[in-house]
């Protein structure tokens, strides 16, 4: 703390005191609170990229193979949809930037959103902010501290990325371009979160809106990159800009200014909104509720429905959009696969047009399942957040049994997840069916491919249930497990990890419908594992102390 801050109140009226007073203290408090989670995401995101850069030479040993990659992989719309445009896949750097750039940017953006919300809106939710605001803390101190901590994490991730990439022998300029794009992508979503923290009434809503914005920008990029006619859409998306820097492929440095400028504009809006509201309140004032409860609000399931329906509706809308998008793109996957001869050969090897579409649908079903697993963890851990907010005790002091309480929420874990998979399958099948003129055939087949993923998702949810029941203090580790499975399935093959590592992820065992045969054994086994995890968690919850 500088001496001017100390002197300010004495020299001037209190109302004129420093609006940022106490920021340094709050940054230290936030770093102390995040002392585990912050290093974890910095390390995982910072190291992930280089894990992909190393195996490139082993995977594609010859020059000829590498030269063909840009045309074959880069010409495959289902891959550009997922990873972004392929500029130059003939070097390890270009390949890494393509395969990881958009996703690391996406994950970093998520981490930044959670960090900013945790140290702003969530502090207000718990009432802790009030205590802090009563001390010598300026109006903007909390928001500034949250922004600084998230920025420290983003920059640290970028610096680690550069160090690791240059360490594996990649050119410095490309490494810096890739890392800068990712870091600034984080900055943009720090800006988004500063706004949502002011607009939303609760931290859940603030995170929800910010993640919806992030999801939309990722989709804009995906559609823009996968369709030639609409490629301008990518330029509307900050996640798209992070790839358009063309790291390791004749870098376009000016794109960084676009990201930085957007971040500054968004954060400015957030800072302008802050003084327009009271601490603990939102810009949209809370409306009064009914004086009496509806007749249906009479058991723990009805209460769980009230608590879970908002997020579920949001997820269902997201999955419908996602599904519709994939469905409308699927038929095009077989059309254009690049004009080169290599692409045509690979295309034929893979079994021609129909087979390509089928594997696209199977791949998308896998991606959708991984995203649905995040919902399943969120729905499950709602039990824990209700418990830590001391709202479970008064409930369990009534005739609601522990099993009844848990079952009310787990209905959403299981049925909600199944609903998400079904909705995404329905919309993919519907849109794809319309394009190929076979709604009656496509809808059930695609819903089947999507629903086949349910046992794998329930294994992830089961980890959450087991942790909640047996090790409640570590319940949040369910997020780590869900992320681990996701990373293994998404990047394991590129990072050239062994089959036994790939097998850790439950998604790996799901038959790739509709292109592959339906084998029931893995589905039955995964369901059995999920059941054991659910049962262990419930048994633990019935025996343990509450609180």
């Amino acid at each position: 703390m500088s001496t001017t801050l100390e002197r300010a109140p004495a020299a001037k009226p209190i109302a004129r005191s420093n609006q940022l007073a106490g920021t340094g203290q709050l940054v230290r408090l936030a770093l102390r609170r995040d002392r585990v989670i912050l290093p974890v995401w910095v390390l995982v995101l910072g190291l992930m990229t280089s894990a992909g850069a190393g195996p490139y030479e082993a995977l594609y040993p010859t020059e000829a193979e590498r030269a063909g990659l840009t045309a074959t992989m880069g010409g495959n719309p289902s891959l550009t949809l997922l990873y972004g445009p392929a500029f130059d896949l003939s070097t390890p750097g270009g390949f890494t930037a393509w395969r990881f750039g958009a996703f690391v940017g996406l994950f970093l953006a998520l981490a930044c959103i959670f960090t900013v919300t945790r140290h702003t809106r969530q502090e207000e939710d718990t009432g802790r902010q009030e205590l802090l605001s009563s001390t010598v803390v300026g109006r903007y101190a909390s928001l500034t501290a949250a922004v600084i901590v998230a920025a420290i994490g983003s920059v640290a991730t970028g610096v680690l990325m550069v160090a690791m990439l240059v360490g594996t022998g990649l050119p410095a300029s490309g490494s810096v371009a890739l890392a800068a794009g990712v870091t600034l992508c984080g900055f943009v979503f720090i800006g988004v979160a500063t706004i949502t923290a002011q607009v939303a009434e609760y931290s859940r809503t603030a995170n929800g809106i910010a993640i919806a914005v992030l999801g939309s920008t990722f989709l804009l990029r995906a559609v823009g990159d996968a369709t030639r006619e609409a490629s301008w859409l990518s330029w509307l998306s900050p996640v798209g800009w992070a790839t358009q820097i063309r790291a390791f492929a004749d870098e376009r440095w000016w794109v960084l200014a676009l990201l930085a400028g957007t971040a500054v504009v968004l954060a400015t809006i957030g800072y302008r909104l802050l003084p327009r509201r009271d601490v603990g309140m939102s810009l949209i004032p809370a409306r009064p509720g009914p004086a009496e409860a509806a007749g249906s609000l009479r058991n723990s399931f009805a209460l769980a429905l009230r608590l879970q329906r908002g997020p579920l509706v949001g997820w269902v809308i997201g999955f419908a959009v996602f599904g519709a998008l994939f469905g409308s793109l699927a038929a095009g996957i077989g059309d254009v696969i690049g004009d080169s001869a290599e692409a045509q050969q690979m295309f034929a090897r893979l079994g021609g047009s129909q087979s390509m579409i089928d594997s696209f649908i199977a791949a998308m079903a896998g991606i959708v399942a991984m995203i649905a697993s995040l919902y399943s963890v969120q729905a499950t851990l709602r039990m824990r957040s209700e418990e830590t907010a001391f709202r479970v005790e008064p409930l369990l002091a009534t005739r609601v049994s522990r099993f009844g309480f848990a079952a009310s929420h787990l209905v959403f874990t299981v049925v909600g997840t199944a609903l998400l998979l079904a909705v995404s399958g329905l919309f993919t099948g519907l849109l794809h069916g319309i394009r190929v003129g076979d709604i009656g055939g496509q809808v059930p087949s695609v819903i089947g491919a999507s629903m086949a993923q349910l046992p794998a998702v329930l294994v992830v949810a089961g980890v959450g249930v087991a942790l909640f029941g047996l090790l409640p203090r570590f319940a949040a580790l369910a997020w780590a497990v869900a992320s681990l499975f996701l990373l293994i399935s998404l990047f394991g093959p590129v990072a050239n990890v062994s089959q036994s590592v790939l097998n850790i992820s439950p998604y790996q065992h799901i038959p790739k419908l509709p292109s592959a045969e339906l084998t029931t054994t893995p589905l039955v086994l995964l369901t059995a594992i999920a059941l054991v995890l659910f049962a262990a968690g419930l048994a633990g919850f019935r025996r343990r102390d509450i609180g």
Partner: protein
Amino acid sequence: MDNAISITGLRKAFGRTVALDGLDLSVAKGEVHGFLGPNGAGKSTTIRVLLGLLRADKGDVSLLGGDPWRDAASLHRRLAYVPGDVNLWPNLSGGEVIDLLGRLRGGLSQRRRKELIDRFDLDPKKKGRTYSKGNRQKVAIVAALASDVELLLLDEPTSGLDPLMEATFQYAIQEERDRGRTVLLSSHILAEVEALCDRVSIIRNGFTVETGTLADLRHLTRTSISAELAGHPNGLSKLPDVHDLQVEGNRVRFDVETHSLDVALRQLTEIGVRSLTSQPPTLEELFLRHYTDTTHSEAART
């Protein structure tokens, strides 16, 4: 079965921290029982054990004739609980919470609900987030008192209420007692305890220091005497249970254990009393001694 609650030798530890260590408590049916003790003495932990939220490590606990851990859900139909820290669901209105909790217990009397909302001057339309601490407590109190139950477990229910609402609360609890309901009331507000409680139990460091009526407890403490005597006060210091004796000429000032008051007064009248004032222990003094005086509580325990 005369006791609504009976606990003997209750022990509960959280890791290495021992929260309850040999706690005894018995609450007769139909009585209002004060549950007192300094912060961190284990009052809330005891209530949580009674609710089956925490599992006792050792000791016998019986609630309404059942085992609170094993029969939790069925026993809970017959009781209502007001937590010390009331946390409401942010997107439910106060009225919705009252109805929900009432329905999840033995049922709710609509007439009583309306009457209590009026008396406590509560706006049932506000959402959980927008209530003040006192108003959140009122929501929990109304939900508990309007429920059709036999036993009320109240954990510092009035810590956020203003004096007017405190009076309303006391009146409401007296009504509950008249109806024959049993109340376990944990409180730091001594006037409330004095006005409402038939018997009290005082706990410290996880065990019971004292149980009885307030008159019983007063009996165990000291009375302050100050007197002007006819002659020089001799022999007073040799008397049993006399403390803090101050002599100034013919004037004396001392404290005496209430059970030895008789002996001390006899000694004074032997010398001859010119004037005398005696001060019975205030409730505050009574509790402060139990809260702070370790040797006394150890003695009382054995």
